[in-house]
C-alpha cells in the first residue's frame, strides 16, 4: 500500500472502494445487501466501483420478475445508482460469455472487462468488499 492510501482519520479521506458481486440476485440475500452497502459508501462520497462476475452478472439481467417468488425486484435500484454518483460499473467478459449474456441483456450500461483486467482493477483498490 502506498502512502497516499494510508489512513489519516476522519471522513475527508476518499478511498477507492470496489464492491464485488458474485452471487445471483435472489437465491441468497447477498445481492440486495451489497446494494445497501454501495449506497452508503456513495453517501460518504467515496470513489465507488462496482463489479459483477460469476453468477453476479445475473444481477443486471433485464426482465427480472421476482414478484412471482414474493421477492422485491431490486434491479430497478441499479438504474438509480447514477443518481448517487455511482457510475463505475464493470462486468467480467468471461462470466457473461459463459452464461450467454450480452450488453443488450442488461438493465444498465457497464464496462466489460476481461478477467485479467478485472484482477488489475481489484489490485488498484484501497478497499474490496465482496459477496
Amino acid at each position, binding site marked *: 500500500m502506498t502512502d497516499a492510501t494510508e489512513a489519516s*482519520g476522519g471522513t475527508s479521506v476518499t478511498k477507492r472502494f470496489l464492491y464485488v458481486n458474485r452471487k445471483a440476485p435472489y437465491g441468497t440475500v447477498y445481492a440486495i445487501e451489497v446494494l*445497501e452497502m454501495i449506497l*452508503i459508501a456513495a453517501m*460518504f462520497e*467515496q470513489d465507488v466501483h462496482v463489479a459483477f462476475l460469476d453468477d453476479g452478472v445475473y444481477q443486471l439481467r433485464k426482465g427480472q420478475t421476482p414478484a412471482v417468488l414474493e421477492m422485491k425486484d431490486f434491479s430497478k435500484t441499479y438504474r438509480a445508482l447514477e443518481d448517487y454518483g455511482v457510475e463505475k460499473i464493470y462486468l467480467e467478459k468471461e462470466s457473461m460469455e459463459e452464461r450467454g449474456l450480452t450488453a443488450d441483456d442488461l438493465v444498465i450500461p457497464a464496462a466489460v472487462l476481461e478477467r485479467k483486467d478485472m484482477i488489475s482493477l481489484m489490485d488498484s483498490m484501497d478497499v474490496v*468488499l465482496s*459477496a
Partner: protein
Amino acid sequence: MKYAIVVNEGPFNHQASDSAYHFVKHALAKGHEVLRVFFYYDGVHNGNKHSAPQSDDRNIVKRWSQLAETNQIDLTICVAAGLRRGIVDDILAPGFRISGLGQLIEACIDANRTVVFGD
C-alpha cells in the same frame, strides 16, 4: 497496522466467524490495532446472547464478548441487516452494539487494511 474487520457469516454454520476471531486475537497479540469488527449479512447472528451451543463446543458469541471486554474491541452489528433477522438491542450479547452501515465505511476509511471474512 490498523485493521477493519468484516464478518459476513453466522456462527457455527460457517468458519468465517471463527477465522475472524482468531485473526483479531492474534493481530492484537502482535500489537496491531483493530478499529472495529463489523457484522453484516448473517454475521449479525454472532451477537445473539441466546446462542447456547453444547458444552463441549466453542461458544462463539461468548468468545467475542470476552475478546471485546479484554481488549476494548468495538463489535458493531449492522442495524438494517440485524432488523431483518431479529437481532435487536434486547438480545445483544455483552460488548456488541447496533449501528449503521456508515460505521463500516468509516472503519474502512480509517484502517490501513480491511479484512473480510466470508465467501
